[in-house]
């Protein structure tokens, strides 16, 4: 790696290739962590760029917290490498890493007040009294905790504790901030407000955030990219939109958001269009995905809000030309959710589709009711074809 003959680095004399692309801030390379026979994290590789807001999303027990704890240094990987700025940090102890963590239960020190909690990491960094006070005041202003400096954690509300924990973790200006379910303990309203604040804060500071969450809405709202984990493996790494509109597998499609899954087989393909015989549905048209699928059994995934309902159905020439899928059925259930309504349509062929319609008018005299015959129609573009 380094030139042994020259002690002073000279970029011109160096025989190392000039790196055209910046190295990622964090590189996780083939990391495996086992607890007994169970692999919590299994051969996982991931690059995270500097300044990114990255979310690790997965059901509980998928290994996302173990991965986070390895980044913080509380667990050591069995195999694989974790590099920060190109340096292997496997042997670096937690207190020596330029990484800070915000714990799920906040882990505020109960015997210290807000100011001393935030200043704790600065004191260990050897800052002077004055330096600590200045930085603490900055952090207090950043998370809007003015006037609460003298309070102890048990005199704070849940939202205030969350802010103290955030300020404490940010006070040392870490290169990487790890957040373990940071909003799980807040109620829904406060959680949504805090999500927005957290995003604004991250953009303002430019710190790289890695957040662990089981709440997909949280991940979708905040993150630049999401890594979906299941059983210790990364299933897909993508932007929120890609993840939702182009899930890589049936598992992800079902895990992220609501979706209708129709199993079937390909009966015909011409150029990019597939004709599919869907089980309990009938003939469907869909667009061939970028990764071509074989003739194996496939499934067609369609989001409930991508389906439209009407009493008469679309024009027959649209259907006959394959420009629109139309399925006939009867409304079997209606769920009113305020902004939208969820309908269940029992198709004549046997399958049930879930359809979400926005309630755009206050007095909707045209709303569908149970037992009504409808046509459910959707464009082939809106179908995602997935391998079983």
């Amino acid at each position, binding site marked *: 790696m380094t030139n042994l003959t020259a002690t002073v680095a000279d970029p011109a004399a160096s025989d190392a290739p000039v790196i055209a692309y910046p190295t990622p801030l964090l590189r996780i390379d083939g990391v495996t962590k086992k607890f007994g026979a169970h692999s919590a994290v299994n051969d996982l590789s991931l690059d995270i760029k500097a300044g990114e807001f990255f979310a690790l999303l997965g059901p509980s027990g998928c290994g996302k917290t173990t991965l986070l704890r390895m980044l*913080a*240094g*509380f667990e050591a990987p069995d195999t694989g490498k974790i590099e920060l700025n190109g340096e292997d940090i496997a042997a670096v*102890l*937690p*207190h020596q890493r330029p*990484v*800070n*963590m915000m*714990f*799920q*239960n906040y*882990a505020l*020190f*109960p*015997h210290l007040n807000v100011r001393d909690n935030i200043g*704790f*990491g600065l004191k*260990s*960094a050897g800052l002077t009294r004055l330096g600590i006070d200045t930085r603490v005041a900055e952090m207090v202003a950043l998370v809007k905790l003015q006037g609460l400096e003298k309070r*102890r*954690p*048990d*005199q704070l509300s849940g939202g205030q504790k969350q802010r103290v924990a955030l300020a*404490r*973790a940010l006070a*040392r200006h870490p290169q990487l901030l790890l957040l373990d379910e940071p909003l799980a303990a807040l109620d829904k309203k406060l959680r949504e407000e805090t999500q927005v604040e957290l995003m604004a804060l991250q953009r303002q500071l430019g710190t790289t955030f890695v957040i662990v969450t089981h709440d997909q809405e949280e991940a979708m709202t905040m993150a630049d990219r999401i890594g979906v984990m299941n059983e210790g493996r990364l299933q897909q790494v993508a932007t929120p939109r890609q993840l939702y509109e182009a899930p890589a597998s049936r598992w992800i499609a079902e895990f992220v958001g609501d979706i209708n899954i129709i199993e079937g087989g390909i009966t015909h393909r011409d150029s990019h269009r597939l004709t599919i015989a869907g089980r309990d549905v009938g003939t469907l048209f869909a667009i061939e995905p970028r990764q071509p699928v074989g003739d194996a059994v496939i499934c067609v995934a369609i989001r409930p809000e991508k389906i439209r309902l009407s009493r008469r159905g679309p024009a027959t020439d649209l259907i006959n030309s394959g420009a629109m899928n139309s399925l006939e059925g009867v409304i079997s259930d209606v769920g009113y959710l305020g902004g939208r309504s969820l309908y269940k349509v029992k198709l004549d062929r046997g399958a049930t589709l879930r359809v979400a319609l926005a309630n755009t008018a206050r007095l909707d005299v045209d709303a569908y009711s149970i037992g009504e015959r409808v046509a459910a129609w959707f464009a082939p573009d809106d179908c995602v074809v997935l391998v079983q």
Partner: protein
Amino acid sequence: MAVHPLRLSRFNVTSLVLGLAFLYLPIVILVIYSFNASRLVTVWGGWSTRWYTEFFNDRAMLDAAWMSLRVGVVSATLATLLGTLAAIALTRGAGFRGRMLMSGMLYAPLVMPEVITGLSLLLLFVALDAGRGFVTVTIAHTTLTMCFVAVVVQSRLAGIDRSLEEAAMDLGRDPLRAFIAVTLPLIWPAIAAGWMLAFTLSLDDLVIASFTTGPGSATLPIRIYSEVRLGVKPEINAICTLIVGFIAVVIVLASLVSKLSSARGESAAPL
């Protein structure tokens, strides 16, 4: 804080009074008779403090009290040190093999009859040819009391979130400094309570001390016991009253310490 005062029923008042009388009547009688002017223990001869004066002039009794105090302080301190370390090892080292066996073995002395503990220590000291006296009694009392300290400290430690120490490490403290900065202040009330418990247990012990002490180094309970065998002198009442008073002060101090620390945002020690 407008908590409605709980009204006690007649039954509750009666049972409370009877219970307290059962517990404290003997001590009250002892205290009253310590101020008895008469030489006869059972005959009231008017108020006097002469038995207190007598005690403070009784060289042998004062020596025994001083011995007890020294044994108590040294053994309580050693027991607190060892018991706290044991408690930390047992709560923090959750993964190590034989942890259940270890904690079982640590707690066995709690239920071990004192006669057996005393006898086994005596055999050990004889086998080691250790001259019996202050050192042997102190070691014996440390053995007796460290498991009590371990229990008290362990229950407190178990209630402390492990992630607090991790947070301290994450914020730049090495494991030892993280422990000192975060865990130690939080378990401090339990350590103090453990020390006081160990101290009073040591002060109170007769059985183990009489097995492990040697000539010329009697503790106060041994001294009192041997005096009583020759007949109860009113001076004994005075000494016992002083001991009761001393222990009462220690207990009040202990609860004040734990109240103060809980008022500062920590929960009270489990005692």
